[in-house]
């Protein structure tokens, strides 16, 4: 293993929260900062929502009067802000482990292999993912192909221009589910059916009204205890409330769960089922010098909220360092 490189602040994750933190820390005069990102681009989740003609804008710039934008545009804006700073950017670098007491990160990248970075303070801006069917606890049945998570749908639809299904069924009724229904419809699929285990959709009335521009999905709430996915080789439907709703593909949407495994592995306190890191005042985690920003905190937050949250966390980090 190579020797340890030391920084004032290390940021894990170059999504909206991580970039927000990097930009604000620079403004506060902190000199040596590195941001570590495992994917090959800056911007986190928004970067997967590509700009498309006739496509659906799913991100909102509240600071600009609430205009809807494409995720990709927002990600590019983030990249511009980050490049302006002197922050060292490490792409394709995955943080594998942490040593919470010594404030050391072990990461791996194609250029350097496995290396250790240490810092006076560390910001975890690792974002979140969607819960698996097992984590949700009310989805069972068969395990065919074409049961996607939203991120997979984005990679196919926006990243590869492939429409994976004609008759979509969406499990999960928050804004991510309604956004997915709109995106699929805009791409040529038929109107989606959205199912969830509650009587009314979780997505707010105004958000649903916005997505009406593209689609008007049929919402079906679950009254039974569970649903079963059907289909041997490919998804063919779900059994819901005693009847089979046919489809040729399923998207499992929303219900975000924090990417807090590094913290949990490193004995930083994390709530077990919700996976929310335990946060004291000023976004400090249970080990001194460790902070969390953005969607890793738990719940659903829009990209811009995460960006500003990253800036607030930066203020707390600066206070901690001085």
């Amino acid at each position, binding site marked *: *293993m*190579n020797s340890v490189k030391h920084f004032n602040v290390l940021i894990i994750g170059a999504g909206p929260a991580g970039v927000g933190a990097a930009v604000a820390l620079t403004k506060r005069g902190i000199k040596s900062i590195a941001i570590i990102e*495992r994917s090959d681009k800056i911007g986190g989740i928004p970067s997967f929502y590509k700009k498309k003609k006739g496509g659906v804008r799913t991100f909102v710039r509240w600071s600009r009067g609430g205009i809807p934008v494409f995720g990709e545009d927002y990600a590019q804006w983030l990249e511009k802000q980050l490049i302006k700073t002197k922050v060292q950017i490490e792409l*394709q670098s*995955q943080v594998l482990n942490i040593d919470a007491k010594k404030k050391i990160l072990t990461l*791996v*990248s*194609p*250029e*350097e*292999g*496995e290396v250790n970075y240490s810092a006076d303070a560390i910001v975890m801006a690792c974002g979140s*993912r*969607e819960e*698996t*069917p*097992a*984590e949700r*606890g*009310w*989805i*069972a*049945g*068969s*395990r*065919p*192909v*074409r049961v*996607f*998570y939203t*991120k*997979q749908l984005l*990679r*196919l*639809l926006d*990243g*590869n*221009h*492939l*429409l*994976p*299904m*004609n008759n979509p069924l969406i499990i999960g009724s928050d804004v991510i589910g309604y956004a997915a229904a709109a995106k699929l419809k805009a*791409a*040529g*699929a038929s109107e989606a059916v959205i199912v969830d285990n509650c009587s009314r959709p979780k997505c707010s009335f105004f958000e649903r009204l916005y997505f009406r521009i593209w689609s008007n999905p049929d919402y079906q709430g679950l009254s039974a*205890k*569970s649903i*079963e996915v059907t289909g*041997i*080789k*490919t998804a063919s439907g779900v059994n819901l409330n005693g009847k089979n709703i046919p489809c*040729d*593909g399923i998207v499992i949407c929303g219900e975000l769960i924090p990417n807090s*495994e590094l913290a*949990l*592995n490193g004995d930083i306190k994390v709530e*077990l*089922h919700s*996976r929310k890191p335990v946060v004291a005042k000023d976004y400090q985690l249970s080990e001194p010098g460790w902070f969390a920003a953005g969607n890793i905190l738990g719940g659903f937050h829009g990209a811009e909220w995460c960006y500003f949250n990253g800036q607030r966390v930066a203020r707390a980090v600066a206070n901690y360092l001085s």
Partner: protein
Amino acid sequence: MSVSGKLFYHWMDKDFDESLKFIDTEQLGDIPYDVTIIGAGVVGCALAYKLSMYKLRVLLLDKNYDVGEATSKGNSAIVHTGFDAAVGTLESELVTKASREWPQLAKKLKIPYEECGALLIAINNEQNTQLDKVYEKALKNGVTDVQQLSAEQVLELEPQITKNVLRGILIPRESIADPFSTSIAYAEIALSNGVDILFGIEVIGIENVDGKVKSLITNCGKKFDTRIIVNVAGLGSRKLADLYGGEPFDINPRRGQFLIFDKFSRSAIDHILLPIPTANTKGVLVIPTIFGNLIAGPTAEDFIIDDNTVSDTTVERLQELLDGASKLYPGLYEQSVITTFSGVRCNCSQGSYWIRCNDGHQGIITVSGIRSTGFTSSPALAEYLIGELHEKLGLNLNVNPVAIDSRSESSWPGWWKRPYSNNELVKESPEYGRVVCYCEQISLGEIIQHLDSPLKPRTLDAIKRRTRAQMGRCQGFDCMVNVAEIISNYCNIPLNKITKRGPGSEIISTNAEQYQ
């Protein structure tokens, strides 16, 4: 490893047949095979491996698009000692024998294997009285290294388990291993020793069953001539036996569902936790996996043979599993279940290890009912079958002096050896430093290495079982499409033709339009 057997995938899709065929069926020639093994589960693969040590022309074929796609991929992955097998049965004999062979076998085959030991735990008076019987049975089965433990001793070994424990038995050699690598390793070595392997080939008829050379009619159009037919088709063995009119038997598929817990759970438990077995099943177990998770299961639910919901999971049964497993380790309620799966046991009404030589006709052997221990017994069962083939079916055995019985060092799975920690390797091949599967920390280099491996896996599930990409807590949220893109780019297959487990399981609906 130099490959001397031929590999054929019957990909059915005309558009890109070429990239996956590897060879044309015509290249297989018309010389009759000495032995054709139908079914590339762990049993068929083990048999191919052991037969490849002899100078024989052997064919191994399966209707699926990888080895071990049926029962062999959905089990508890325990290498049993046979301590609780029915005394005096063939199953008991083969399991106890194989269990002693496994440590060496795992080293040869480069299969991750760990002798973690098992604890049989009595938590009520009824179970407590059963315990002595189990102990005696173990001794009768020749498993003499079992130890009786007091409650204190049990809790010393496993402090996190239920405080209701009354007494226990330690079975030190009960082990865990990688069930996927096992079938793969057997088949890779067999291939390299000259066994031909065909995937996507279903036997749909047999001609000249009474002749010395029989002819297998398959779904690819080509007929394969063979002197001996070995039916190790698991759940499919019944239908296959109908094709040649073997002695009647019944299969009642018995489903086992499992919960897989996140790796954070693993630090709590070191041993396999066993409840006291009942007449029908071993009950709900808590099992550490070689991959670093805990699993709980299995259920035992009987089905009729053609029920297509047989491998589903159900919310109620999974909840029962959680409740049952928590009786042994109450801390399970705190842990997250990342995914669930089920496996289907080939449960034969006529009894386990239902083996018939010259079944209906000379030269045909039926092997069915390898219900709950086939993963463990595979090396010993294969040797037993070779004995039967020699004695009862007249197979001549001449040792092949150039045959190998091991895989190379580089065959250890990456998740076991962590190639990214080898800075020399990363410097030489930076793709080993490029992590693709974030949760299991699997690199691009490992995926490419497996695409190049002897069986040329091309499906998402085949890559998943080899590398563990998509098997972590996010279940492919981050990496599924990346893996599909890597297969697509590296093997020149259009992305929309990438499948989960062969034709008919494309990730893109075939009639969905390209979208700009």
